[in-house]
């Protein structure tokens, strides 16, 4: 089970008929159980890349080979829950085969047990994100895609959710593609970090982080973060 991506270009044509290049060369492979983190400036085309990889956008040049069938669990930037279904129903609709014990432990880790019967409109953004995460994990995905899962949460909340994601990934390793503009997310969660250029995005560096997530000390994390920041600065 691996994901092979070789995109050579992707462009949009705007209403005035002008062509905008969003992606240039993006080639990488993700292995079973590997967490690949894509870091790049806001608006560089990360979400466009994600849409191509998840099969939502077919209009690009290049090739994406995904094993078929591939179960994709995705956390969108906005939670995209169904407002007319309860938290539990939102998860169960995506994952009809999830068993009660599995669901309970997932809700337990994400601190959602008390919110099962709530409607998404009654939740804060942080809670809604966690429901979206529960939904993505409940289907036992072959590929987990997280598009800026921690953006616009305050620092403490983001750190807590980041820790929860780490716990869940330890419990059940899954091939994961995490998109972020935050270096902290990258060095704490990633097995490999890909630095993206500004628009049109291409991969500038691919940096593996050898030490397993759970073994990383704060000093390791600071060190890796410094290296990454240097690469970013060098890239301009």
């Amino acid at each position, binding site marked *: 089970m691996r994901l092979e991506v070789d995109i050579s270009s992707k462009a949009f044509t705007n209403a005035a008929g002008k062509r905008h290049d969003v992606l240039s060369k993006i080639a990488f492979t993700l292995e079973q159980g590997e967490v690949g983190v894509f870091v790049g400036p806001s608006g560089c085309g990360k979400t466009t890349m994600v849409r191509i990889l*998840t*099969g*939502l956008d077919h209009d690009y040049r290049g090739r994406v080979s995904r094993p078929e069938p591939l*179960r*994709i*669990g*995705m956390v*969108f930037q*906005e939670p*995209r829950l*169904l*407002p*007319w*279904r309860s938290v539990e129903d939102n998860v169960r*609709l*995506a994952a009809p085969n999830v068993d009660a014990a599995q669901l309970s432990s997932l809700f337990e880790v994400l601190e959602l047990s008390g919110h099962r019967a709530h*409607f998404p*409109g*009654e939740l804060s953004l942080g809670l809604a994100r966690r429901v979206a995460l529960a*939904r993505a994990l409940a*289907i036992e995905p072959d590929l987990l*895609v997280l598009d800026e899962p921690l953006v616009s949460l305050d620092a403490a909340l983001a750190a807590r959710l980041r820790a929860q994601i780490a716990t869940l990934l330890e419990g059940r390793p899954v091939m994961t593609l995490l998109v972020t503009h935050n270096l902290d997310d990258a060095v704490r969660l990633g097995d490999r970090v890909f630095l993206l250029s500004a628009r049109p995005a291409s991969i500038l560096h691919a940096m593996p982080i050898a030490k397993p997530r759970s073994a990383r000390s704060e000093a390791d994390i600071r060190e890796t973060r410094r290296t990454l920041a240097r690469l970013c600065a060098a890239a301009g």
Partner: protein
Amino acid sequence: MRLLSVAIFVISWWIASIYLGSAKLPAPPEVLAAILTEAKSGALFVNLGATLARVALSFVLAMTLGTAIGYWMGRVRLADRLGDPWLILLLNLPALVVIVLAYIWAGLTEAAAIVAIAINKLPTAVVTLREGTRALDPALDEMAAVFAFPRGKAFRHVVLPQLAPYIAAAARSGLALIWKIVLVAEYLGRPNGVGFEIGVAFQLFDIPLLLAYSLSFAVVVFMIETAFVQPFEARLSRWRPRAA
């Protein structure tokens, strides 16, 4: 509150009948007596039943077709382009024309009446549902696509709840339209129903009878509105945060 507004209605009616004279506007007791006579003979229920059956059939027909066509026109651009001129024509065609033509082409039959009523309601249902379909959230469609929702499930849990307010609006306005048109269709070409009886009362200048049927009909409409339409709307919007 409702009782009060009904009381005000009856009192103003009574006062008006005193000024106009009972030949033009009979007082409430006189109309009540006419209602009771018709009820005792059973004619009231036969006619109300006939009218209600026509309303139900043409409502279901128009809503089903209207929802399907509206959804289709909202999703498929070509269908929208092809259907739009028809829609404009039907929207602006007077109800009387449709009814008379239906009777001429299909005879004075039950089917002609029901189809004619349905055709009058159809275009407004199509327009409302087309708007609803255009307003569907593409973000949720994408969510359903990534999570590989089967078609039926996506329609039921993702699309239908978004269309529900539009379906309710179409049902609400459509029902009002049908209540108005059904009597015309009956008046022109049916041997029973509230519209037919009102036609008879008009020819005999029997104003108590005329008012007896009109009022009974209004009461039935009111009961259906409060017993079915309003609870249905409330149920559909139960997930929405309450408006202050």
